[in-house]
């Protein structure tokens, strides 16, 4: 497995990178950690003329608090997210999700920005970032713009990023009070990708009713999505195992699940319900301060 030839450029600053991305248009691919792009290039399914390596950009690898939100640089690796004390304390869902990606070697190289921009239908992060309502910052030579994550994933391998844009940062709000989150994943046994991955976030009111619920689902269809029907069933109701079980049945509503060697559409649909219920159960326990 050998990639086809390409021209390599490694800009030092984001500005240079953006100019290159703009200049080369769809003849270029952006290389971050390389764990989404290089496999495709080795298979020669992707044969870009230019590879723009943004891995050397300074100041794109950080996790810090900014104006009450947590800002994560696009080049932050899965391993860094997994082990970040800040995230573990204030946004544990991202750390928990990162820890389920591939294996440690992959997590040491793969980046948050690379994974999100690639929008693999079976990637783990999309479920979590949807459940967390993150903001995605896209940079271009014209400046930056903010994309709400709900508008970000358009289709299989397709995002709202425009030609000439580089995903530069992800912003996420710290966990609110009385809130619990969890990521539950049924992994494909060979590749470790998600057959179904469900990220849940639950905020409880004082009386134990569910004030807010957000469910992100990956692996099921061509793109990750919010299970709005489940969320609707939960909001304003008193949390219970029974409620979670009933609400979870709607996890796949409106989605035409994928079918492949590892799981049929039916099985994926059923597992979406099971894993939604499991994620809700764990998120609930955490919202109560348990587990």
């Amino acid at each position, binding site marked *: *497995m*050998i990639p086809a030839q390409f021209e390599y450029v490694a800009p030092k600053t984001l500005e240079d990178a953006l100019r290159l991305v703009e200049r080369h248009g769809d003849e270029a691919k952006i290389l971050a950690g390389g764990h989404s792009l290089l496999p495709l290039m080795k298979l020669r399914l992707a044969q870009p003329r230019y590879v723009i390596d943004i891995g050397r950009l300074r100041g794109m690898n950080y996790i810090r608090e900014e104006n009450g939100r947590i800002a994560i640089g696009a080049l932050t690796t899965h391993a860094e997210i997994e082990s970040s004390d800040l995230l573990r304390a204030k946004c544990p869902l991202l750390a928990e999700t990162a820890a389920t990606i591939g294996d440690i070697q992959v997590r040491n190289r793969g980046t948050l920005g690379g994974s999100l921009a690639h929008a693999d239908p079976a990637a783990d992060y999309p479920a979590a970032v949807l459940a967390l309502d993150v903001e995605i910052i896209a940079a271009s030579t014209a400046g930056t713009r903010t994309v709400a994550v709900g508008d970000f994933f358009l289709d299989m391998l397709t995002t709202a990023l425009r030609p000439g844009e580089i995903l530069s940062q992800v912003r996420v709000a710290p966990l609110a009070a009385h809130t619990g989150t969890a990521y539950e994943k*049924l992994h494909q046994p060979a590749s470790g990708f998600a057959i179904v991955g469900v990220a849940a976030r639950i905020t409880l009111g004082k009386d134990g009713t569910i004030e807010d619920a957000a469910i992100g689902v990956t692996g099921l269809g061509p793109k990750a999505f919010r299970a709005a029907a489940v969320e609707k069933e939960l909001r304003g109701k008193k949390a219970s195992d029974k409620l979670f079980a009933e609400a979870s049945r709607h996890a796949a509503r409106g989605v035409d699940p994928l079918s492949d060697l590892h799981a049929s559409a039916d099985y994926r649909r059923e597992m979406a319900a099971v894993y939604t219920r499991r994620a809700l159960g764990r998120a609930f326990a955490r919202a109560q301060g348990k587990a």
Partner: protein
Amino acid sequence: MPAATRYLGKPLKRKEDPRLIQGLAHYVDDLVLPGMHHVAILRSPYAHAQIRSVDVSKAQAAPGVVLVLTGADVRGSIGSIPCAAQIPDMKAAPRPVLAHERVRFVGEGVAVVVATDRYAARDALDLIEVEYEPLTPVVDPEKAIEKGSTVLHEGHKDNVAYHWELEGGDLKAAFKKADKVIKQRMVNQRLIPTAMETRGVVADYKPGERQLTVWSSTQIPHLLRTQVAAMLDVPEHSVRVITPEVGGGFGSKLNIYAEEALAGYLAIRLGKPVKWIETRRENFQGTIHGRDQIDTVEVAFKNDGTILGLRIHVIADLGAYYQLLTPLIPTLTGLMASGCYKIPAIRTEITGVLTNKMSTDAYRGAGRPEATYLVERTVDLVAAELKKDPAEVRRKNFPKLSDFPYATPTGVIYDSANYPGSLDLALKLSGYKKLRQEQAKARKQGRCVGIGLSTYVEICAMGPSSAMPAGGWESATVRIEPSGMVNILTGASPHGQGQETSFAQLGAEILGLEPGDVNVIHGDTAIVPYGIGTFGSRATAVGGTAAYKALMKLRDKLAVLAGFLMGENPGKLVFSDMNIFSKTNPKKSIPFGEVVAAAYTAKRLPPNMEPGLDATTFFEPSNFTFPFGAHVCVVEIDQETGDVKLLKYVAVDDCGNVLNPLLVEGQTHGGIVQAFGQAMLEEAVYDEQGQLITGELTDYAIPRAADLPWMETDRTVTPSPVNPLGVKGAGEAGTIGATPALANAVADALSPFGVRHVDMPFKREKIWKLMQGVRAPLGARQDRVRAPLGARQNNGGRRSK
């Protein structure tokens, strides 16, 4: 084997490890020769197609490209891939090294590129234009033998490769006498061996010396030399095969492959060394696959659990062509269809079928895992039908100890065994009684728990030459060098088994030296006498015995010489601590080195003794050996997802005497885990068009560390009478004994759902489906907090501090 030993039977660390753990070993891909060219092969994307044209002009003109050849270019120059197996009335299905006219499986080579650089060779593949005319692919072996199916090979009237039958005992009477008969279809799925090192070849030709050297990652260097010489039509003595370090084989490198001959041809033609290293996708598509049988078994039995007869029909999917042993493998299933039971009558009928897939051949166990699987599943079906404990039904059908050597109705003679002994120990170690109680409790709690047993016997130490296509003996040469250092040259070329250590232990024991004084040489046909190779759990039982005999020859010679020098009776000498002692007077001794030196200086030799210390043996075993054992395991199924978790595994194996228990333990672990792979994860899937859709390790799952619990292993020791070491062989027991234990556990877990049998692999969705639509017969609700059943999950309760 002597009663008290110093090295033999001891868990010595391996001599081969220092180079391996430091990255200093050399596998084929690590070899670099001056001026070496690189080979890449274009392969068919079609399972079945006519080749209309191949245009190599663009590839030939590409930078770095030296030569591009098609199947038509080489067909007259390289013979087809040899098959050593002969079955009466078998149709021929030889495979050319590169396809011409027609391709018959996805991955079949169509053209070859030689370039000065590996990357350039790969680039050139994209420039070759092949026009194919797709033909109807034949994928399902049962449909392949229906009338009207497309026929793979010209001149064949259908896709039946052969019919093979074996019958012993009075089957009619057995079925007449039976209280009950059960019939069950079982699929033993197609597997991909997946040695971690793919195959690879380096070939170099020296025109002046007319010497072709082929380095190949193979289990059978000598057979490869003979066959490559024949395929290239060059004298055998002008070919030298060297196996460098081999990164696992499991049968997949017990073969002669197209690329081995092609590389040799290209080296001769270009006068340049060439290297070809298989990619993983090529390995999945074009290195032999294993298993792939559809078995239908009918069992006749009495209400007390006595099995009276078995009628077995096997449809064996052989793939598109024969590799070295392809047609032979299923017949081993017939040979071992009696399992470890006294079954009076057995009939096995095999239909070998040609399909548009890669050839099946010997994969760890080779025919015997299939036999054990169908027998062991059958015994459990009988037990389930009679509502008896499967351990009791097994015990009921074991031959008595006094029956050994025991002749089965399938015509083999089991050398020695104690089946109840290994079963008892396995039951005791696993706490079987308590497990059953815990299972009953778990079921009441709504948990889906299964316990599986298997008692197995396997046929090993292949074997007497009468039963082997290319000879069943093994060679060894022992040379004691003038300094007293010992070289053992063995024809049983290992690939991870550790013979460099175990044979050194043998040599040190016999000659009274340290294992460090004994060096083991293998895998070079120019140095080592002709040998058969390492497969069929034969290296120690046959190769080790050959080494033992050669060592004994030299020991005897040294004893005569030492006796002569010491003035002592040669029969009364002991070899120990680098000295040769008098038994009667321990103070009387002579240094080992002094005797060796005397043999070489040859100034004081007994009359008629030749100088030097060199002995060669070709050991021909009188029979196979028959290792056996009993395995017990516990699984739990997540009813919501169908996920099967292995909670506990206990294995008791009996491979006779052992040279190094550490190595045996390693073989056992590895075998069990490969069986786990077959049971739970692995399946080579071709779609209906013959595309191999498990094309990479991203889709074909093999076991990972975290999939497994702590395995508890133990042994009983029943020496084999077939060889003087009393060893039986340990390489394949795991894949033979463990697969049915796991399958029986899963069937047991599913029995409350009315499931009698489910085919491997036990993938989640398949298991989940079986539980749908059946009202949970167990306690209603699943409890997510689980008491550890049979304890020991992953960390085995042995948390490190």
